[in-house]
């Protein structure tokens, strides 16, 4: 087996183990909350002990915890995330499916916008170190990084949707039944808000590593060889500077997947984030469990991808595998 595949499988195994631990924590956390599913479904009617007990039996809440966990986990493995406790009791899988797609599109757009901008800003401020451009980018980055993303979102809404200009919708109620192309304007503000939250971290990290690489002897050597400045940057400096940034990018995309909660809620965007907020409010435990597990899986997967990419783009690590 090629060494890279070996690492991949080993890390996947570790990832599954991590998820298993997360599932235990998630399950335990939902158990620790006051009340249970039966109470949540019945609401005020839970005072009726007979109905409450019957429902508990029906939901198998009377079984030992370990058995409950095992049957829930069994369901997760089979793709059956259980039934929602709210309303007609729809399948969790159906319920969150659309939201996952919506959020995936949002994250994808945010990543596609923020990563190239970060690379551009980071490398340019490294080249023009201590220039006006660098200072402006630096101050902007620091201010953005110090604001929570929902504050940025509110400012965006004030400026572009309500108080100053009325160019864009302030509510992004994407309808999954309509074609995506007709609803692009709904994505603009959430995407910008998310991008503004990610760019400072990635671009500052890239600036730091590019500055270091530009001071290196191999960059000096490239210049003394007569290599053109753009080639020095793109060919000699960036491939080395990007390596430590890969991990930061991965963590930020993972954060996008989990951290969009407040942003989605702000724009009432029908994604996993808003879904999670609703589910927590409704004590809809199967949905909460499913969404948290999903977010954990995305973290694990993105970190794994970052490690693999790091190995692939650094020759020393790649050839070290042989």
């Amino acid at each position, binding site marked *: 087996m090629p060494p890279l595949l070996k690492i991949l499988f080993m890390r996947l195994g570790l990832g599954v183990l991590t998820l298993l631990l997360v599932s235990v924590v998630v399950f335990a956390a939902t158990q620790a909350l006051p009340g249970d599913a039966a109470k949540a479904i019945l609401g005020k009617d839970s005072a009726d002990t007979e109905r409450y007990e019957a429902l508990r039996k029906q939901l198998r809440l009377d079984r030992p915890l370990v058995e409950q966990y095992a049957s829930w986990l069994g369901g997760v493995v089979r793709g059956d995330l259980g039934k929602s406790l709210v309303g007609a009791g729809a399948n969790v899988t159906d319920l969150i499916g659309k939201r996952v797609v919506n959020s995936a599109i949002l994250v994808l757009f945010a990543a596609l916008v923020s990563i190239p901008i970060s690379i551009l800003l980071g490398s340019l401020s490294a080249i023009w170190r201590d220039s006006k451009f660098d200072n402006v980018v630096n101050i902007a980055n620091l201010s953005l990084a110090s604001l929570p993303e929902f504050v940025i979102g509110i400012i965006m809404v004030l400026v572009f949707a309500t108080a100053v200009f009325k160019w864009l919708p302030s509510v992004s109620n994407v309808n999954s039944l309509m074609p995506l192309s007709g609803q692009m304007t709904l994505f603009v503000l959430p995407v910008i808000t998310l991008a503004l939250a990610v760019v400072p971290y990635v671009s500052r990290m890239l600036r730091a590593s590019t500055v270091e690489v530009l001071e290196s002897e*191999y960059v000096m*050597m490239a210049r003394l*060889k*007569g*290599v053109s400045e753009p080639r020095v940057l793109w060919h*000699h400096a960036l491939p080395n500077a990007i390596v430590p940034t890969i991990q930061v990018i991965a963590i930020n995309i993972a954060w996008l997947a989990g951290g969009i909660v407040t942003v989605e809620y702000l724009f009432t965007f029908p994604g996993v984030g808003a879904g999670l907020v609703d589910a927590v409010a409704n004590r809809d435990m199967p949905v909460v469990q499913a969404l948290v597990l999903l977010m954990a899986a995305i973290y694990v997967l993105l970190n794994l991808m970052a490690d693999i990419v790091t190995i692939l783009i*650094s*020759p*020393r690590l790649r050839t070290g595998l042989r």
Partner: protein
Amino acid sequence: MSGARSDIVLTVEDLRVVLDPSGIEIDDGVSFVIHEGEVLGLVGESASGKTTAATSLLAYQRRGAKMAGGRIEIAGTDILSLSRPELRKVRGGLISYVPQDASASLNPALRIGDQLMEILNEHSFGSSHAERQARLVEMMDEVLLPSDRAFMRRYPHQLSGGQQQRVVIAMAMANRPKIIVLDEPTTALDVTTQAHVLETVRHLTSSYGVSALYVTHDLAVVSCLVDRIAIMYAGRLVEIGPRADLFTGAYHPYTRRLLAAIPDIHAVRPPRGIPGSAPRPGSRVAGCAFTPRCDCRIDKCATEFPPYTGPDADHQVCCWRWEEVGQGLPVIEGEELVFPTTRAEEPCRTVDTVVVDVREVTAFYQRKEVLHEVTTTLCEHRCLALVGESGSGKTTLARCIAGLHQFKIEGAIEFNGKTLARETRGRTSAERQAIQYIFQSPYSSLNPRKTIRQLLAQPIDIFFDLDRDGTEERMVRVLEQVALDTSLLSRYPEQLSGGERQRVAIARALVAEPSVLICDEVTSWLDVSVQAAIIELLVHLQSETGVSMLFVTHNLALIRSIAQEVAVMQDGRIVEHGVVDAVLDDPQAEYTRLLLGDTPTIPADCRI
């Protein structure tokens, strides 16, 4: 300062480079010419501004430095007036650069072949890709490296140090430049590899008529390579002349002291260090900057910088007393040094008490055997030199004795008749105190966050029960022993020069009052002038304290000055073992002869 020859390739006139924005001079009024096919050696200590002058020839300055004046002309082109695109054509075309550290100068993310091809592509060598491909093969032949696809697809880290340096030299030769700037290209290499690289440079310059500027701190390295030598001190050229003239009749006290600092493998005299260190930009005095370190200074030296003068146009010097120096005015005060007085005629064990006994030691690095049944002894009041190239196992053996080896060891190491545990934590406090280790790099062996006082107090706290005054008193005493001022106690390592740092490292070992001192390549990071001073110090300390010393080095020329016995190591084995004079004068092992042949030295008729 040039001869009347017309074939001048490079002219440097009144070059001035300053720190930006402070305006402090790094290079001040440097002028020289290089003729066609000529190799000029630019020699000076750290901080003399020689590397800055060298990169200036390519109109390049490191961040924080800028050109403040002067003119540089290569083959009729005024380098400093070129536009960026024109300059690009000149760099790597007309003039090329070979850096000090090839391993750091090759891009770790790019294949060797791509990096070599790049310089041909960027300068549009030839007219077709096929022509460039052919040139690439030719280039690799010139530096005796393979040019097959497999080699071209390698990354820098997959080459040895010598191969990396050859790749960089091939790159510099790619577009058949008029002149190459070589910036200490062999300093990081073993003597054998260094000899190969020097041979390659010699061959290339003579067969293709390329001129070169060879920058170094070691006159011995360039003694059989260069045609002329320029000596640089504190940003100025202090002497320039034909090689033979400089070796046999230098006019500047500094040049003579640099020569005196070179360890001579023929053993005419022990090397003499230059006290102090070359002043950094900003701390240079008025007048001649060498004045504070010069033993022939007169009042005028401190106030007025001497003009260029000399016996003829080819040999120029800046010194008020150059004529006297040329006639034999002694440049070193004080009595002549002699080689270690307790010169042993007989090997250890025959007359002296054995302190460290290494018996059939086999050591592993991870699972690989790196030392094979090594047996040697270190006797009381003696110094044993352990010589070999990198990878020979000499440092591994030293670390085994010190208890720093982390992997399996077989066999026994005895100290005063008792077997030592493998690791320091298994050894008694007395054993740890008795064996002290001085590391190779004074730049990384001293904790940058501790003051010299804290660094020296630590071993005292660990091994001795001394009160505050007692500790302070011992620190002061040891600093005097290593010739450092006590005012350094409150400084941080960063504020000291390389030589001073190594003295602090020696002092740190000495405060523990060891009976065995292990010196692991302690001079390899230092200038030749500082190296000689450190050797002087170690010799003096050994005779004064009677400590037994294990001196690990790759430089055979050094050992006569310090050791009574030598063990030559190759591939984890001791291939020759004996009294220093016997081994150096009549080497038995083929490998020892090879090392001796590759060790750079100064001409036998050199006059100090």
